[in-house]
């Protein structure tokens, strides 16, 4: 018996089984090749991701500093987290940042995708230019922008008399987060644009021809045809983007380092500070709480997707 026939049988079996009670299949065994594909990865994942995560949850119930003696302290770390305004502030910052960035990224990416999908000159060349930010490391991008914000922009602003920009916006506690949004959008928009382009290309040209005959303007076409037809892609972009922006770290490190003051400390930065700060168990408790929150958001989003009939 060859493996191909086994695989074919396995692929067929759900159809033959459907409706009836499950029966013992004498020869319908699953090809071990599939196990060879899944199990090593599963073992590695469990050993390097799941196990450390569980160890982290365990230590969040102790007063472990990362080294030395420790003992169980129950839920004290969790109670203390809720009393810590610095942690609360990092949550507020992260969520406001993630929401804003998601909206801006999608608006920008959709606009770029519409432009790049139109019949314009040098389309391939322009597309390449737009996708360059995606290839660059976020850390390098943020260091470059750091220099622009701190040195180039103030000099230009001074020369042209734009006083509000004469000092770096990275040094302004109320505006620094906008700089982070800007750089994140610059870096994240190309990825979203690719997904939108794929969506736009899946829309058949006939629907636009029909709309033209009916006399619909281009804005009406966008609102009534394009947007509903690429809604699935929009949902995917929003969900993937929001999830990614909640974990924002390296762009902030490169731009402000969490400053000025405490203005741009993201949750991920607070958690990571536990490793260097001898505050391991406390920030582990923070990580567990953050994990539960993101899990909740993901579940809600998945329910929304299923209702929309889109699958990831």
């Amino acid at each position, binding site marked *: 018996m060859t493996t191909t026939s086994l695989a074919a049988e396995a692929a067929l079996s759900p159809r033959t089984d459907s409706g009836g009670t*499950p*029966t*013992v*299949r004498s020869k*319908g*065994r*699953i090809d*071990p090749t599939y*196990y060879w594909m899944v*199990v090593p990865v599963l*073992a590695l994942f*469990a*050993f390097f991701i799941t196990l450390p995560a569980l160890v982290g949850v365990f230590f969040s119930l102790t*007063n472990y500093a990362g*080294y*030395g*003696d420790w003992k169980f*302290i129950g839920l*004290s*770390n969790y109670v*203390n987290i809720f*009393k*810590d*305004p*610095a942690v609360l502030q990092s949550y507020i910052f992260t969520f406001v940042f993630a929401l804003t960035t998601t909206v801006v990224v999608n608006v920008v990416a959709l606009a770029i995708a519409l432009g790049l999908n139109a019949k314009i000159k040098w389309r391939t060349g322009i597309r390449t230019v737009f996708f360059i930010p995606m290839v660059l490391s976020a850390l390098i991008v943020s260091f470059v922008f750091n220099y622009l*914000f*701190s*040195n180039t922009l*103030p000099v230009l602003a001074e020369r042209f008399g734009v006083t509000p920009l*004469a*000092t*770096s916006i*990275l*040094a302004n*506690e109320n505006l620094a987060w906008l700089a982070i949004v800007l750089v994140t959008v610059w870096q994240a928009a190309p990825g979203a644009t690719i997904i939108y382009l794929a969506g736009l290309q899946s829309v058949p040209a006939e629907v636009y021809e029909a709309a033209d005959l009916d006399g619909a303007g281009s804005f009406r076409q966008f609102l009534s045809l394009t947007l509903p037809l690429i809604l699935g892609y929009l949902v995917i972009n929003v969900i993937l983007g929001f999830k990614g922006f909640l974990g924002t770290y390296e762009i902030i490190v490169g731009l402000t*380092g*969490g*400053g*000025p*003051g*405490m*203005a741009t*400390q993201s949750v991920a930065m607070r958690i990571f*500070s*536990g490793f*260097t*700060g*001898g*505050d391991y168990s*406390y920030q582990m408790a923070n990580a567990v709480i953050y994990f539960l929150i993101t899990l909740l958001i993901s579940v809600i989003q998945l329910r929304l997707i299923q209702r929309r009939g889109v699958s990831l």
Partner: protein
Amino acid sequence: MNASVPASLLSRRSLLRAAGLAGAAAILPLTGCGAGASASKQDGVTTLRFMQNKPEVVDYFNQVIKDFEALNPDIKVIQDFNEGNFVPGLVRNDPPDVVTRGFAQATADFVKKGIFADLAGLPAASTINPEMQELISSWGQYNGTETSALPFSVAAAGVIYNRDIFDANGVAVPTTWDEFVAACETFKAAGIAPIYGTYKDPWTLAQGMFDYVAGGSLDVAEFFTNLTAAGAGISTAAPESFTNNFGPALPKMLQLASYAQNGAASKNYADGNAAFAKGQAAIYLQGPWALSQLVAANPAIRLGTFPLPVTNNPDDTKARVNVDMALSITRNTPNMAAAQRFVSYLLEPDVVNTYNEKNAAFSPLKEAPAVTNPQISGLNDSIKDARYFQGAVTYFPPSVPVNNYIQSFVYGKNGDQFLSALDDEWRRVAERTAV
């Protein structure tokens, strides 16, 4: 799928076994590490591992080790300058024999856990200036009496100034706060930025402006001793609180900030070194570590250092010091005798004084010669009279982002909010570490 019973169960069990084997294979090498270092004695030659914390002085210690080995043919010393290996070494119960570390909060934690041997019995210990030894013992001693570390190099920080700009404007080194303010006004009137600020790097505000003003206005060590003793009971109203002790220092910080160049908020440490080396300001609130950078950027620059006067009594003026290198022997070393000989050699006047002279630092020996380097000799009197303090920020546990709070204060100028935030942070850390 559950229906396909016996064969798949069997394979599942064998899979589990395979996973178990893989896990064991991953753990085995880790346990194997511990056995590696025991073979430190071969052919009557003892091998010592020496971990030092400053990668930039590897060459100096290579020479020292060569000289030491020539005098002690029965000992071989291996230098390791990667300080990051220290904690993993402790975890594996295989730390280096002799260690140098910068002495502050983190090293004090190791002392409290009894990681280091008692060095009080070494003859070299009695050659150390007791005031400098106090910089280490003030952090707490193991068993209340032990000497866990001996200072090797003490870095002293003050105000770096550009001698040419001072001379050109007829300004002498100020010895009181009023003179300092007058000097700044003179520079300002002459169109020179009095102070170069690099606020974008919050640590520069912390070690410079904050530590200098705090150290000059109050007894930092005593303040933190009282604060720690108060523990989790601290509130903003308590007599030990930041609010009740640091208040008078804050207006002076803001006054210093007002003398910084325009746009200080968007400059970092590297920008500051480049600009100050070009003579763009008269005063730079930085420690000796900036000196070599400044000279590298402009070899012709003439620099000096003076301690920042914070009151109008010149006798109150103090320098900020930190024990840049402190020598320790790990408690469980199998080569205690050899390690002691090596530490004694490192503390011979020739070795320790030459090191500090080369690296713009102060020797901890009682009989240390006066520093002649004009870049730091302005701090000689403060060091000689033991008028110095360890920076207030070095007492904070690393989980309190004190540098960011200081930056926030300098930008927002809200002193009450700043000090009550420090009180709150300190109380929260005390609460969760007390349990």
